[in-house]
């Protein structure tokens, strides 16, 4: 599966099945913290065909617990890809027309270099010796990957939630490589509330005795209970109050109360299931690192506190910003702030708030208006890009 790029500057063909691209030791990934990663690995999956002009590539950036398996079965869970509703023939990210790329972020646990990877210098899992990463670092690694594919400009960079933050970072850091940018249900910075929820999750993991100061892999254990609690807390923030009420209300699992602490309510049972199924597919240290990257995200801070300044060089990029009316994790005002900054920077921006009660997670659920908007925007982008 693993492919070795002969030269990172020379164009290489991505394995259509996907795989892991390993960069030669000389091709160092420099991180915001000052640390360096040698022998970087980027796990990827592609859909559709790259055209001869290499002008039809769309990079999809995933959210906190997403991965590169956009539209094909996830090998770990056996479940369909997380964006199967949107990526495929005839779908908004039409694989008959576009070459759609998913990569696993660095710090992740689906094949890209992360805390569960082996540190080539020591021969052991990185664990907590893995350097703290940022959203910009994730994007820098994706940039190396895209360059290795020989793609100079991406027709679109698309992402929801943390993926949307990567989209903004892409447009800000590499405007010349981004023809259009679609930022869904995201924000230009993490709020105090966002950081607070993440801290609850991290504390749950670190309070689990099986976490072992991050060195659990060496002992053959995993902080499953802590990670499950982290996921449960986070999952609440992905749903709206209305959606929880609609799905569960005060519905009970069985007739009558247990007069104990079993999962009496359906919502408890649902959350427990979310927690336990999550630990089968996600690494606890990855969760710590990626939530940290999100908390550190503040695009304006790198530009003297002015978000507009972050986009000044991105004036030629066609932006599409989307939010969901019931999203309280990254609520609409956060998207409006992005749009106002884009307007102030003189960038070409579109924005729509999609009316839904499905909360933050609406970006991968059945939401016809999201479908129509994405399809319309990408079709017109393709036209502007000269794709037939």
């Amino acid at each position: 599966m693993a492919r070795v790029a002969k030269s990172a500057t020379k164009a290489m063909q991505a394995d259509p099945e996907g795989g892991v691209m390993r960069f030669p030791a000389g091709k160092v990934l420099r991180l915001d913290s000052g640390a360096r990663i040698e022998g970087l690995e980027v796990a990827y999956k592609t859909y559709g065909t790259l055209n001869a002009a290499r002008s039809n590539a769309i990079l999809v950036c995933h959210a906190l617990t997403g991965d590169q398996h956009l539209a094909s079965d996830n090998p770990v869970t056996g479940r369909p890809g997380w964006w199967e509703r949107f990526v495929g023939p005839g779908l908004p990210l039409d694989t008959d027309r576009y070459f759609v790329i998913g990569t696993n972020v660095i710090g992740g646990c689906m094949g890209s270099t992360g805390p569960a990877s082996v540190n080539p210098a020591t021969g052991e899992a990185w664990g907590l010796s893995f350097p703290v990463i940022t959203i910009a670092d994730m994007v820098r690694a994706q940039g190396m990957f895209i360059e290795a594919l020989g793609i100079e400009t991406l027709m679109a960079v698309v992402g929801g939630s943390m993926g949307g933050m990567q989209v903004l970072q892409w447009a800000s850091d590499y405007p010349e490589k981004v023809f259009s940018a679609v930022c869904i249900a995201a924000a230009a910075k993490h709020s105090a509330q966002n950081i607070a929820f993440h801290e609850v999750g991290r504390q749950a993991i670190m309070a689990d005795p099986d976490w072992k100061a991050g060195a659990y892999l060496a002992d053959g254990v995993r902080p499953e209970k802590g990670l499950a609690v982290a996921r449960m807390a986070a999952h609440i923030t992905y749903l709206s109050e209305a959606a929880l009420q609609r799905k569960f209300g005060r519905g009970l699992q069985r007739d009558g109360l247990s007069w104990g602490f079993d999962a009496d309510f359906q919502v408890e049972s649902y959350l427990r299931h979310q927690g336990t199924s999550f630990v089968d597919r996600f690494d606890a240290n990855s969760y710590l690192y990626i939530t940290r990257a999100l908390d550190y995200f503040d695009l304006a801070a790198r530009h003297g506190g002015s978000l507009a300044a972050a986009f000044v060089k991105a004036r030629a990029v066609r932006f599409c910003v989307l939010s969901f009316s019931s999203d309280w994790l990254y609520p609409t005002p956060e998207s409006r702030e992005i749009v106002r900054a884009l307007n102030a920077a003189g960038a070409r921006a579109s924005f729509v708030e999609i009316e839904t009660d499905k909360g933050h997670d609406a970006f991968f659920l059945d939401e016809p208006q999201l479908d129509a908007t994405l399809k319309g925007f990408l079709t017109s982008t393709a036209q502007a890009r000269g794709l037939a």
Partner: protein
Amino acid sequence: MREDFREILRLVTRGARVLDVGCGEGDLMELLTHQNGVDAQGLEISPQGVAACLAKGLAVVQGDGDRDLDYFPTGAFDYAILSKTLQQMREPKHVLSELLRIADRAIVSAPNFAHWRMRLSLMSRGRMPETKALPDPWWATANIHLFTLRDFTDLVRDLGLKVEACAALAEGKAARPMNPTGMLENWRVETALFLLSKQ
């Protein structure tokens, strides 16, 4: 093609940067883009309108002309267009001055409440006029700040704006250039279109 659109296409210079406030489904922006080669940006409150614009490849921001103009930088556009919606704004005076902060020129059209048909309807029926230009009953209309041609020219003067061009519009008729302060015009004009600039 709508007569006001034809007139706007005539007024907007080629390649200009244009903000269309209340752009609806983007019909005007599409014309301006294709015929005048302008760089158009829309502002529209309805999600359906925004979605239609996006599907046409137009840049549009969902927002409210009353609130969101404040966030556009000064001098960002050559033209700001407000087509038949000034009378629907909560703060028309503020909106008008904002248009001319954001853009060098504003193109504003609005129904004239002093048109003879309005006057006749009010005189004879004693009720709020319901005409082709203003078809809804008073309790359902979005037109909360109706005004006359004379009212508008007063406001333009108070704001220190200059009328560069002015035309009378009526359905199915070609736009007619006119002097907005002419006495008879306040009776004759159904809808007026202004090209305004800062003095």
